[in-house]
């Protein structure tokens, strides 16, 4: 077809096109860049093998990030990204004590695809780092996906002035806070003292001398969360640990939920995680505290999270 546009047609088309461009920015249903929270769930048949589980975990992660507007919303070209999973314990993935390795690997890939200069993966484990990194499966998976797997060096933590309500200064790992983006990706677990360990508590892996936190977990977690200024958080609920947390070790304490939440509101994600563990957000001190001091909202439904069901 060969037809030159008339001026009227051109103006009309331009108006439509401009409107079309503006529209997503204004209405929430079509505006990925403003989505604050996304929840992906697997409703298909239960995975029969680790490979199937890995595939589902990968899809849940990809879809959750996509629903927030894609990784490029958070990671700019040339950024140094630190992915902070929970690699706390010398436990295998089935025991649900550490973040799912495929969720971490998928994030690594998405960051690199978004143009990250380098993606680092690391945590300050409670068990021996060499063992926890290996048995969690995260070191291998992240390396394969192209990340640098970093062991934190005890001598290189730097006392930082975090100006918290309870914690005034604490040794923080400089390489983490000096990264352009820190992606917080914990697993939802029971915790004997904090009731649950979720996104806020995952920041305990960027510091040293954290043992004192236990004396007032809610306030200390609010302090470190405020200092870390969370951007993108993902809560891995593919498996959740319901008892004997945070270390676990019993397969009976683990429930397979095949769910994942992602978002920019850390308190909302934690509130959602609390429900995944069969608790009310108000049961958990750090969520209440985080809500009170304005780190986010514990009424995560008010953010109208995008719910995506995969099968």
């Amino acid at each position, binding site marked *: 077809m060969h037809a030159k546009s008339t001026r009227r047609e051109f103006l009309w088309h331009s108006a439509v096109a401009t409107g079309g461009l503006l529209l997503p920015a204004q209405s929430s249903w079509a505006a990925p860049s403003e989505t604050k929270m996304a929840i992906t769930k697997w409703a298909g048949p239960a995975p029969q093998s680790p490979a199937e589980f890995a595939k589902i975990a990968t899809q849940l992660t990809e879809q959750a990030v996509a629903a927030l507007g894609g990784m490029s919303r958070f990671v700019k070209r040339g950024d140094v990204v630190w992915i902070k999973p929970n690699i706390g314990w010398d436990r295998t993935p089935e025991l649900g004590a550490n973040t799912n390795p495929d969720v971490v690997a998928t994030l690594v890939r998405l960051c690199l695809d978004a143009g990250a200069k380098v993606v680092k993966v690391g945590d300050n484990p409670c068990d021996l780092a060499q063992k926890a990194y290996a048995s969690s499966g995260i070191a291998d998976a992240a390396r394969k996906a192209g990340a640098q797997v970093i062991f934190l060096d005890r001598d290189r933590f730097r006392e930082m002035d975090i100006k918290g309500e309870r914690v005034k200064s604490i040794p923080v790992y400089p390489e983490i806070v000096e990264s352009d983006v820190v992606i917080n990706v914990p697993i939802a677990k029971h915790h*004997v003292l904090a009731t649950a360990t979720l996104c806020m508590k995952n920041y305990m892996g960027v510091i040293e001398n954290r043992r004192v936190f236990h004396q007032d977990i809610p306030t200390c977690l609010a302090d470190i969360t405020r200092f870390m200024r969370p951007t993108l958080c993902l809560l891995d609920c593919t498996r959740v640990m319901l008892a004997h947390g945070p270390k676990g070790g019993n397969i009976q304490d683990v429930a397979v939920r095949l769910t994942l939440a992602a978002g920019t509101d850390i308190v909302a994600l934690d509130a959602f995680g609390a429900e995944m563990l069969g608790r009310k957000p108000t049961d958990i001190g750090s969520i209440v505290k985080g809500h009170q001091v304005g780190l986010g909202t514990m009424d995560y439904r008010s953010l109208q999270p995008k719910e995506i069901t995969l099968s």
Partner: protein
Amino acid sequence: MKRRLPFRRWIRRVMQIVFLLAFIGLIFATRPVPGETPSWWLKAYFLADPLILLLTVLAAHAVPLLALFSLVTVVLTVILGRVFCGWICPLGTVHAMTGWALDKVQKPAKRRDTFSPWQKAKYYILGGALVMALLGGHWITIFDPLVLLYRTATTSILPAAQWGIETGANAVYQTDPRLGRFKLTSVTEPAYQYLRNHVFVLPKQAFLGTGLILAFFIAILAANAYRRRFWCRYLCPLGALLGLLAKRPMLRRAVASESCNECGLCTTACHGASASGFGSGWKPSECFVCLNCSTTCPRDACEFTFQPAIWRKEPAVQPVGLTRRGVLWAAVGGLAGFAFLRTTPQGRGSVYHPRLIRPPGSRPEPDFLARCTACGMCMKVCPTGGLQPAITEAGLEGLFTPHLVPIIGYCDYTCTACGHVCPTEAIRPLTEEEKHQIKIGLAAFDVTRCIPYVYGRNCVVCEEHCPIPEKAIYCVETEVELREGKKRLIKLPKVDPEKCIGCGVCEYVCPLDDAPGIRVITTNETRHERHQALLPEVESEEELPY
């Protein structure tokens, strides 16, 4: 006349270096690798040591199967003499190198060094050791040369080197010096990270009692200034055992009397002071087969020849020269020494040191001491660095034997490395499942220290780290009273003695890291049937009639 080239001496030197480097290589290779069981060849040197085999057989009435490998050394010695001392023993090489270095500084080395009767001391030491071993004492193995070098290298030399490297690398990292566009960290960081991830066992590794261990080592090295290879000539118990085996070796030194003018040059370079005269009086029991005599002789009068018929008199050998009276005194000395070691309350088994926490799989104490050489392999391989040499905890007989010091490092729940490296099975090799059934101690709260008990605040870091899936530490919600009648609901931690295996992670992680609020003591340790203080819990709904 044709001059014999000194190349044979160089072959020996190269072999010595190779065996020393292999020894050091095995020390470095003895490190925990997640998911792997340490392989048996890491202890190859100890398995080739006939002294360890002999004393263990006598003391423990058991044969560590792999140690039968040391029969190779026995055969080698019967054929070739003490080549083990001269060519293989890494401590011998260290002594030879020290002597060589001292030659450069001291200069007077051209003195003629002939056999001293004091060299027989080592045989009497061995004699005493054998009597001790017959009675169940294995103590003298802590002076075995391989054990001595391994322990010193592992617990003092390597940690010192690691300290230097870590401190240096961190200083460079923090200051980040540049030379023009060149950053020093671009070299130091990759090197440091390689060492950290593939060579060091854990950051900041350090051991108790290193001063004592190092002082002894320096003392025996310093003795080279008095006589070269003083340790090997006068004291070494393994050297004595090999000396006895080398009484009439097949490889013998023959001196052509028509060429020899008794100048004595052969005795200036002799490592073992094995000849009592110039060109005569050769004692194969003292000879390290270093070949220096035959290389030094300007007239080529001195040569090693092979004599398969060991009963032949020629070439002539001199006997070891032990006296019946001397041997008797050695036996009495061994007996007295053993009595001295055992007549302590600990030696009698009537007290248990609360902090003598032996690694999992350790045999009951007397049997453990009848096997442990205190070589330090278990301490080297321990991933947390918690296994430390005992200085006073196990008495003199248990000097430098391993024990767990939880405040330094704990027993990792999934690790079984120590039992797999132990050359004498003083620590039995366990599977992970077996290990989980073994209690090495029991944790107890110090309620005058523990934060929730004393200060009425939540803490329970210990509960969090307890590796038992069902948790040996559990919490009881309790209302505590604070100042001015204020009440607070906190979690008070308690220990379940049925479940606690004594790994010590609770003590390690306790925020009170000077005097922890929870401590592990040896009560309930599986290896001692008599050391069970607590009855097993009865499964019953009803209250017991206390």
